[in-house]
């Protein structure tokens, strides 16, 4: 089986190369048969990579411990679901997942566009197949998942494997990496379309329209992946946080920031024909940041909790990114004439300008995070000393940036295109402005003096009210006109322009998440060694240690502490944080116990025994639930924005003329 798997990947590599050569030659020589055969090659690659991945997965599920990968990432006692997720538990497997996702995406792209965009599809295929070939090089020649264990020359097996890293044996972690990868890989598609459109000097914005849904779905996956990672850190890692500016967390954030900027700035191109160069730059930047993210995660170039793999793959990534970036930059510079803006900025207080500043700040934050993440590498190169920056540095930069973006979230959508009259400013912003000032005043009076927290709560209320007013005003009009009730009118309003109102919902999700982030300004914590009967106070809670228990199952040994929780004398229940030691890997993990409420979480971690006393770390995290709620709202909003609007909005200038006709002969 392992031979078939390795052979399948090797063949896939050859066919991917064929797809690149075939589609480019076919296009240049105007040979439709070559172009079609290259497209069929994409299906072939998809089939072969799927076969290879299937063989690896079946080896994991059946526990074929002759495979190095299976022996390292799986063991007999693990539940089947984690045997499956061991697919992306290690370097070789997760790179195969990358390849597999890309091959699937490419097949879908080729299938859905089989009758569209005939004149630049060959280049789209070529770009996707190039990326595919690069990852298949890694899969075949550098970190093959089909390495076998051998004694001398004979293939052998170990009786049982090491097991998946216990930290990864957790439901959210089972889907976090594929979500993030779906996001990483997905940006290859809009990038390929942008390059294809650039090479063939397309008039209009065909590539943007075609890839709008791709981009949004991809962005959605990435958002889910990031939030799941944060949730996993919070619930599993036991250090009580959800974000620490760890290099790998940053790696997932970078393409998200660039992608968010891209989602906003394409609106400028669609509606005003502006920022064409910028959009190409952004989509390329996002794609290369995705590759960089994979690189940072998989190569161990920067120290990180995630960087489990030191290795040889670094130089391949660097070479690929260098060549890719050089080619993209050359292409953009060469085609600058085709990317002339059709309109100009007119006023500082206008929709255009708010997009401009949104982009500026998102990109600045992206650059700052990149700088901070790579600082150890850069400082070593230039000063010879390896220096890292701590999370305080990131916070000092990113908190003001985040708050500024939050404010823009409220302001931007209500500015008119071109210029905004002071009359409309007053109409739109007076009540939200007054309300937030009142809130800040009330919070000050209540004894909250944290500067950023006050600003953040003020902005959150401001943005929330502007969004509510938008829904309210629009829905009231519809309700009056068509004599329907208000709730129905809200749905009707959203359905008429899903993009706009879905976007508002996404913004609302961001506001809720900011409320959750701001709660971190009021965290409390303490560490205690407790004997049975000992009692401590944290905030309004009294924690009393009751007893410790222990036991074992096939997969791990466990020990837990029961802690009775009461608040102001009222008994609330017993929390049981647990420490596990996994047998296969001999690694301990901590299962924290939480009491989750909307206003605050009580979070207990059992850090082990010291003699006869249990070491209990206790935390209060105010408002943290709102991060997860906000994320759900964000997902819902994005899904709404993906629904086609009831009223098809026509923009006179966004017609793509004559693409399908010119090369229609290619099909038959």
């Amino acid at each position: 089986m392992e031979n078939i798997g390795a052979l399948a990947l090797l063949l896939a590599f050859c066919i991917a190369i064929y797809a690149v050569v075939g589609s480019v030659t076919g296009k240049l020589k105007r040979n439709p048969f070559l172009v079609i055969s290259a497209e069929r090659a994409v299906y072939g690659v998809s089939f072969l990579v799927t076969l290879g991945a299937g063989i690896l997965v079946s080896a994991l599920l059946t526990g074929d411990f002759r495979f190095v990968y299976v022996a390292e990432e799986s063991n007999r006692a693990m539940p089947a679901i984690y045997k499956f997720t061991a697919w992306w538990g290690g370097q070789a497997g997760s790179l195969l997942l990358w390849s597999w996702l890309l091959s699937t995406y490419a097949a879908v792209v080729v299938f859905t566009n089989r009758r569209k965009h005939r004149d630049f599809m060959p280049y789209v295929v070529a770009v996707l197949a190039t990326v595919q070939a690069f990852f298949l090089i890694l899969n075949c020649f550098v970190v093959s998942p089909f390495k076998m264990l051998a004694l001398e020359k004979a293939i052998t097996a170990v009786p049982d494997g090491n097991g998946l890293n216990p930290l990864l044996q957790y439901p959210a972690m089972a889907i976090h990496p594929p979500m993030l990868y779906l996001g990483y890989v997905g940006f290859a598609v809009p990038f390929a379309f942008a390059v294809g459109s650039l090479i063939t000097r397309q008039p209009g914005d065909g590539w943007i329209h075609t890839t709008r849904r791709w981009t949004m779905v991809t962005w959605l996956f990435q958002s889910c992946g990031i939030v799941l990672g944060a949730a996993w850190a919070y619930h599993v890692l036991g250090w009580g946080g959800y974000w620490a500016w760890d290099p790998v967390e940053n790696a997932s954030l970078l393409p998200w920031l660039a992608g968010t900027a891209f989602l906003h700035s394409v609106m400028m191109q669609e509606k005003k024909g502006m920022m064409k160069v910028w959009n190409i730059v952004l989509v390329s930047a996002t794609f290369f940041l995705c590759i960089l993210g994979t690189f940072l995660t998989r190569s161990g170039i920067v120290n990180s909790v995630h960087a489990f793999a030191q290795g040889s793959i670094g130089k391949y990534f660097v070479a690929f990114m260098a060549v890719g970036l050089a080619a993209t930059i050359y292409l953009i510079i060469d085609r600058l004439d085709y990317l002339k803006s059709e309109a100009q900025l007119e006023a500082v207080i206008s929709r255009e300008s708010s997009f401009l500043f949104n982009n500026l700040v998102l990109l600045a934050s992206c650059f700052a995070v990149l700088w901070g993440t790579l600082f150890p590498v850069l400082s070593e190169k230039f000063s010879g000393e390896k220096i890292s920056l701590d999370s305080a540095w990131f916070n000092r930069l990113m908190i003001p940036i985040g708050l500024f973006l939050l404010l823009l979230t409220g302001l931007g959508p209500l500015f008119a295109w071109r210029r905004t009259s002071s009359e409309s400013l007053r109409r739109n912003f007076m009540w939200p402005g007054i309300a937030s000032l009142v809130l800040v005043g009330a919070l000050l009076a209540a004894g909250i003096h944290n500067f950023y927290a006050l600003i953040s709560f003020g902005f959150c209320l401001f943005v929330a009210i502007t969004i509510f007013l938008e829904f309210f005003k629009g829905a009231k009009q519809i309700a009056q006109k068509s004599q329907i009730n208000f709730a129905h009118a809200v749905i009707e309003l959203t359905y008429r322009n899903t993009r706009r109102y879905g976007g508002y919902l996404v913004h609302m999700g961001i506001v809720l998440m900011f409320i959750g982030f701001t709660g971190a300004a009021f965290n409390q914590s303490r560490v205690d060694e407790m004997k049975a009967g000992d009692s401590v106070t944290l905030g309004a809670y009294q924690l009393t240690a009751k007893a410790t228990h222990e036991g074992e199952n096939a997969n791990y040994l466990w020990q837990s502490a029961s802690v009775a929780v009461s608040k102001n004398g009222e008994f609330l229940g017993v929390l049981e944080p647990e420490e596990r030691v996994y047998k296969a890997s001999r690694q301990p993990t901590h299962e924290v116990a939480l009491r989750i409420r909307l206003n605050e979480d009580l979070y207990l971690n059992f850090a082990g025994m010291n003699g006869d006393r249990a070491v209990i770390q206790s935390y209060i995290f105010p408002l943290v639930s709102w991060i997860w709620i906000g994320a759900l709202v964000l997902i819902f909003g994005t899904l709404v924005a993906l629904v086609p609007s009831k009223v098809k909005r026509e923009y006179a200038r966004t017609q793509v003329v004559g693409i399908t006709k010119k090369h229609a002969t290619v099909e038959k």
Partner: protein
Amino acid sequence: MKKYGKFAALIVIIVGTLIWLATAGIQNNQTYYKTISELGQLGDQAYTKRLRVGGDVGAGSIVRKGNIVEFMLVQEKRNLKVFYDGTDPLPDTFRDGAQALADGRMGRDGIFHANKIQAKCASKYEAKPGGKPAVAPVYNNKASL
């Protein structure tokens, strides 16, 4: 031209603020990576800078005393005694033989006072007792031909 002036001014203000935020007081946020042997050669600087030292956790050296965790960091046969007094719980991967990174300051007493520890599992196959030492990964040559 005047309106572009306004844009330029705003952009300069925003970018300037960010650069100022990024550079002001950056000294306090920097941590220097040093090996244990380099620590000895640093002289007085060793006591003023925040440092990050890496190494393997000495077998059986982890001792918990109250809120302080003591252990020995070993790198190229040099030892460094570390006291961890940070507030974060130690990572699950932190145990005998793990590769660890300790962030903190060097004390005049020759003990490294860490407030942050990162740890990574040592290579799993070596760590496994009773495993067959002769078992080594190879490429499956048949298929790559």
